[in-house]
């Protein structure tokens, strides 16, 4: 089981901010493929992952990173802090 979080417009498009998912995905990209296959709103939200960022257990990471032992995956658009 893995916690998946969505922020900003990604959260709005998917319609929720957090969900618990049972997955065998080996990498972030695999997880994204699984999510896309679920429903239209996921497919649309994850259409272009080059415009998205991912954090694994609250550390910025890459879409080809492995999910081994990861408990929290967060997807979001580029940050606009400051």
């Amino acid at each position, binding site marked *: 089981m893995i916690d998946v979080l969505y*922020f900003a417009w990604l959260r709005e498009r998917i319609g929720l901010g957090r969900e618990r998912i049972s997955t065998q995905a080996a990498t972030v990209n695999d997880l994204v493929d699984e999510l896309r296959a679920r429903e239209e709103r996921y497919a649309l939200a994850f259409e272009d992952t080059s415009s998205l960022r991912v954090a694994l257990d609250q*550390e910025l990471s890459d879409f080809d990173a492995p999910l081994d032992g990861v408990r929290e995956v967060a997807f979001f658009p580029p940050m606009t*802090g*400051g």
Partner: protein
Amino acid sequence: MLRVQSDSFDPGKELSAFAKGRHDIGAIVSFTGVVRDTDKTLKTMEIEHYPGMTERAISKIMDEARTRWNLADVLVIHRHGALQPGEVIMMVATASAHRAAAFEAADFLMDYLKSRAPFWKKEIGANETAWVAAKDEDEAALDRWTSSPPD
């Protein structure tokens, strides 16, 4: 010191208290970010953040600044939630023996907070609502700190 909060704060009060009574400081630089509404079309700015990761990411940036420059003190305060035009979003302050270190460290902190701290801004106007898009120039600004390491 780091604070991530929804409450408003007065950067002046924070500056007065910052690095107070220390005799090894010659220079203090502060940056204050304000909700701008030049065209008078903005009603509210909503700032979303990623609780937990926000504190981790900013602490890491502050540690990096302390490693790069000889800083007597560093302060970051960043708000989230609904803000009105003219309200203070965040502030950064740095204290050092010399002015170059204080200026560079504050500049560095701002560049990294812009693009590496998990905040997202949404502008709610009278007629339209839009997420603020990250700027290429903000991402490019980070190169300043990787290409030539500061002293």
